[in-house]
């Protein structure tokens, strides 16, 4: 199911606000997602991620703001908008006393699928989540990772325009985690819009085309990973473990474009470089030309963790 609006976005939301008693859980959140784009909401526990996606998925009433999915206004009563959404909640939402096929068939029917179409799609999804061999076993007998995969499979059943995944890798072993991340990458490549919440920086960096940094119910910054990192104004530090004429080498390297600083250290040369990953070949070539022999390279890149620290004064996993 592929649907977009005149603006070309699958999801558009703005000014979302939600209070629970005196607690403002979400305050003015807004962003948009284009077809095929994977958007990450990155923030620590309690930042407002789950409340935001619950409102976007039509599970929660909002106090203010607008949400539209594929041009349909979303609210808890909106069945039209919900047809476009596949939700994978953070906590498992499956019947443990039913097997994978029964769980999938049940939710397929709730999405209006019937007969051969349903059976075929259930088989496809069982293949995607690699549970075909265990499809007839009760899901309570599955490992944690298998349950997570089934949880995701239900969200994929009706080929949603927008797939919402709420921290799908929490409590999952590394192998299953990697499998889940690969699946999400493939879905994005297939053109599905994905809204992915996580408090794992590495997942956001690996999966997301754009990222919104959320904390205390507000989006503190938004953009591609590079754009966000640039917000910090932080550059990469490149440490060359080297021997030879280090002084001449440092001087030569300091004249290269995007190299802001160079200094000789006890075991080599340290450089401060903008976008070091783009400049490394040039740096290594220049070092060789000046008679410096490089035995090792260590790059400390600016990352989202640093950005979050910069924006909020707190670590991402506090």
């Amino acid at each position, binding site marked *: 199911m592929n649907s977009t609006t005149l603006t070309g976005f699958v999801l558009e939301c703005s000014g979302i606000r939600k209070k629970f008693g005196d607690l403002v859980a979400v305050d003015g959140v807004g962003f948009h997602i284009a077809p095929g784009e994977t958007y990450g909401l990155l923030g620590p526990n309690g930042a407002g991620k789950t409340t935001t996606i619950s409102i976007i998925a039509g599970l929660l009433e909002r106090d203010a703001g607008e949400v539209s999915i594929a041009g349909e206004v979303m609210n808890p009563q909106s069945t039209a908008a919900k047809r476009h959404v596949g939700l994978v909640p953070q906590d*498992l*939402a499956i019947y443990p006393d039913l097997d994978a096929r029964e769980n999938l068939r049940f939710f397929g029917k*709730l999405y209006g699928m019937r007969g051969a179409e349903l059976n075929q799609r259930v088989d496809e999804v069982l293949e995607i989540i690699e549970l075909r061999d265990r499809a007839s076993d009760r899901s309570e007998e599955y490992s944690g990772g298998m349950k997570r995969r089934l949880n995701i499979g239900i969200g994929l059943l009706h080929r949603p325009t927008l797939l919402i995944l709420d921290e799908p890798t929490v409590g999952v072993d590394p192998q299953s985690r990697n499998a889940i991340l690969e699946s999400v990458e493939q879905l994005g490549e297939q053109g599905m819009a994905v809204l992915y919440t996580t408090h794992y920086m590495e997942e956001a960096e690996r999966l997301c085309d754009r990222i919104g940094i959320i904390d205390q119910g507000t989006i503190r910054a938004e953009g591609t990973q590079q754009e966000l990192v640039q917000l910090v104004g932080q550059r990469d530090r490149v440490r060359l473990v080297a021997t030879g004429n280090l002084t001449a080498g440092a001087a030569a390297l300091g004249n290269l474009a995007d190299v802001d600083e160079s200094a000789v250290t006890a075991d080599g040369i340290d450089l401060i470089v903008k976008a070091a990953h783009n400049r490394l070949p040039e740096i290594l070539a220049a070092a060789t030309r000046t008679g410096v022999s490089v035995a090792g390279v260590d790059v400390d890149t600016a990352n989202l963790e640093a950005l979050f620290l910069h924006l909020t004064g707190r670590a991402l996993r506090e």
Partner: protein
Amino acid sequence: MKAVAIAEVSLRRFFRDRSNIFSVFLFPVILVLLLGSMQGGASNPRLGFNAETPDDLSAGLLDGLEAVDGFVVIEYDTEAATIRAVERGEIEAGLIVPAGFASALQAGGDTELRYVSRAKDGLQGIDTAIRSVVARQSTLLRTARFAEQQGAGSFENALAMAAEAQISLPPVEVVATSSGEPFALAGLGQFDIWSQTTLVLFIFLTTLQGAAALVQSRRYGVTRRMISTPTSVRTVLFGEGLSRLAIALVQGIVVFVGTWLIFGVDWGNPLLALLVLAMFAIVSSGAAMLLGAVASNDQQAGSLGTMFGLGLAALGGAMFPLAALEFLSTTVWRVAHITPHAWALEAFEELVGYNGGFAEIAGFLAILAGYAVVFFALGTWRLRAVLTR
């Protein structure tokens, strides 16, 4: 269709737990059959009869007892066999005629008949019949003895004359006229009334236990996920309620048919009785869904279900007949009608006691439908509030 899908999965999960089959289907049926048997069911009470030395007088007593409608007389050879049969519950009571019964009476002496029963206070129907038959024979004997003393011949001749005179004399007739409405259940057996109240009690009680299934779905996060699909809260509740309704209907029909076939319970027009049953099952399902939306965990749903199931049954006449409540106090009777039980029982009473048709029970069905609508509406409102606010 989505409601059917939800009901289908709910039933699948229900039947997957074998203990549910026992508690919801077998247990009530076994209980109804067991209690029905204890109540005597459809068969007449049985009276054992033993005459140690059979003679004309004991034979006359036996004939007199056998002529009475309402119980069966079984002859035993010995006193011990009669008592053993009573103790084993093979018969409800026994009457033992001592040896020399006739000769003692003919000699003008006294004698005693021994009446044996397991019930502490005897069995009212049998007691009355025995006293009546014995009194009639005593009257004949006293008349014969008096005639003998007055020189009317031997005791045997006098007895024959007295018996003949009793037959030829016209009996004194007592003419009864009724005033006011007849008591609807007067013509029904105890088990007929009891079956109606038991059916209503069990349907509501066991259906309320189904609230736990909705709570469990909520706890698994599945109900919330259903709401994330293009499925309304109303449909979710309706689907869950539909599964409870199916279970209640099957349970009700099993009890209904079982009591009808085994004990000959009178349910009036069977189709209309099934209609009342179906409507009450819908009300029970609505109540279960409301409870499932309100309760915060399985245990709470279970205990509240038991409390309301038994409490409303007691209040609504499913434990004490409504007629008894009416005699007790008009206020109590009015309060009883807060419950759907009272209206369902009145509908059954109309069908069974007055041979009522659809027109007579339509009002009761409408009131029950009102209960169902209110319960489902409140349940939907509550579930929506729990899930989306």
